[in-house]
């Protein structure tokens, strides 16, 4: 589904990603961990096509196509979804209108008929249950005045509505208390299917108790330093990242798979 090869990327003049390799197949959940500044969020933004992030080397193939050549909206229509670490508040635009426009843009791209208001609201009602999102929130301005937990739930709600093939979750657990985390993780787990791949970027091992990954990768200085199975997350929780920094980055078994 996704093949990242030797990816180098800059934000402004700072080189953040320095030769990242990663392969993700359909149905897999990959956790990406690593200390602050290691490039986790940059990877998520590069995949979604955020302006201001420049790829200087390497390539990203998504379903065999050059992902980096697509605009952000084309990526979304092709099935790439980013759950934002900091969802943006958009005063004056209702969640309902926004989501209907998004759903229909994607349906149109797939050659499916657009949903009318009635069908759309029925679908929204069904998906809202995934993350126990209040119907009142669905009617309000996009993320405006939402609590941190409500914003994250809204991201997963959008993901449920848009049914992406590849979902990138950027620190979806940050700042959530345990109840909100359970709800969000529960929503994500319900969206796990054999056809869908997920990249879960997280700062904390805790999330991985709820969303159990197939693979765990540690990002250090812009490349993957070590990869392993889900048990590696516990090891990291115990030992931290510092032990990794002393080892050469190129040797860990399974890196880049």
């Amino acid at each position, binding site marked *: 589904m996704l093949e990242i090869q030797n990816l180098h990327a800059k934000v402004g003049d700072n080189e953040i990603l320095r030769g990242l390799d990663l392969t993700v197949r359909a149905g897999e959940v990959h956790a990406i961990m690593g200390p602050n500044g290691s490039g986790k969020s940059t990877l998520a933004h590069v995949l979604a096509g955020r302006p201001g992030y420049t790829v200087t080397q390497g390539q990203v193939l998504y379903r065999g196509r050059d992902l980096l050549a697509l*605009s952000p909206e084309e990526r979304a229509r092709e099935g790439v979804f980013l759950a934002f670490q900091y969802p943006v508040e*958009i005063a004056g635009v209702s969640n309902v*209108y926004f989501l209907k426009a998004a759903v229909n843009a994607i349906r149109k791209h797939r050659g499916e008929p657009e949903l009318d208001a009635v069908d759309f609201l029925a679908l929204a009602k069904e998906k809202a249950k995934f993350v126990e999102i209040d119907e009142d929130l669905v009617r309000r301005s996009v993320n405006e005045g939402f609590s941190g937990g409500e914003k994250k739930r809204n991201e997963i709600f959008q993901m449920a509505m848009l049914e992406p093939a590849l979902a990138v979750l950027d620190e979806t657990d940050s700042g959530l208390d345990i109840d909100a985390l359970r709800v969000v993780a529960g929503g994500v787990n319900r969206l796990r299917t054999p056809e869908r791949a997920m990249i879960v970027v997280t700062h904390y091992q805790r999330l991985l108790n709820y969303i159990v990954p197939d693979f765990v990768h540690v990002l250090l200085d812009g490349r993957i330093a070590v990869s392993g199975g889900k048990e590696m997350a516990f090891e990291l929780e115990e030992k931290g990242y510092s032990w990794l920094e002393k080892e050469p980055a190129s040797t860990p078994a399974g890196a880049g798979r």
Partner: protein
Amino acid sequence: MTPVAEERDAYRTSFERFAASTVSTEPAWLRERRTAAFARFVEKGFPGPRDEAWRHTPIAPLLRTRFEAADPSARVSAALLTGAGLDGFRGPQAVLVNGRLSAELSRLEGEHPGVEVLGLREALQARPASVEPHLGRLVGEAGVFSDLNTALAGDGAVVLLAPGAILAEPVHVVHLSAGEGTPSLAYARTLVVAGRGSEGRVVETFAGPDGWTYLVNAVTEVVVEDNARLDHYKLQREGAAGFHVGALAARLGRDARFSDHSIALGALLSRTDIDVSFEGEGGECGLYGLFVLDRRQVSDTHSRIDHARPHCTSRELYKGVLDGASRGVFNGLVVVRAGAQKTDAWQMNKNLLLSREALVHSTPQLEILADDVKCKHGSTTGQLDPAALFYLRSRGIGEAEARSLLTYAFASELVERLEIEPLRRAVTRHLQAHLPGPGELSEATA
């Protein structure tokens, strides 16, 4: 002779001709006010490049143009009538063509208890006691354009709300500019008197054809007597080559409430001077405005709120949406006089620049001479939020549509304040037509 001096001479000729024609029909008090106003114009002349109040307003093209007096019996095209959006208003409707009331196009009869809407010429005969205390007095000596209007406006609209009257339907005053070819000039004059304890809404629409150079010089005076409430709306959709110079002066009595909602969509250049003064305690005033500009359009709003008495509240919010090489000017002054304690004033101007060539001059000002007051003001000018744009695009919404959506959302705060259905629909339609994308934007807002 300089072109400006020549222009002044042309005005002198028309004033002399006008004064001679009205000498037998108009009351002495009005002739005196006209003469005094014209004398002020002669003394001051048109604003020059160093005139502070006009510093950011490029009026040279207006001053360079020789305007002939517009013909009040000019034919009004069907397209112009349709464009003016008369449909949907169910209250009294006064239609003025090039400044003169058109009996044929107006709808002033019918059951509208508590309100009288009539032409200025008629009102001078029929209701002199309602007109004489206010006409030309409210707008005072504010500026040369309103002086010219006071001197030369031959007709206009007068709206009188009886004390205690509660109007269900808004009064609609429509100022049409009709003509073609030679650049023409017309005076639009409106007087609204809301009697003690009355409540009503007045909408003024300005419209003219595209492709014709003309000037509308408009003056609206509003008296809101004690404990009355008057909501005023102005929709400016002049033709693309039109000039619009307007003044709005309002005087509020004790516990009176007044609001103005000004929507500027048309004209090559439009300028509005707003002057509100509190003459009793406990008054409330809200000034709201939206200007949407493109190409080389210019819109300028100068407002002045005079808190002359204590315990008055004012709110002011102006928003500009500027595309192309357009230019916006906002200058808002709130004066709190000595002794006007417990004044509560809030003023804000926000501008959205959609292109690199668009430009805005924003000057919010407070002048506070009392010590127990709550005053706040601010101004922001920026582009569409790139983070919001990316967020929308990351969900599959195309860039052009995302920009439209965010632009509409920015303007919607003011569109939604238009609590008069046909007015709000007209503004929404205009925005929809200028913003690309398949969505029905009027449904976009939360």
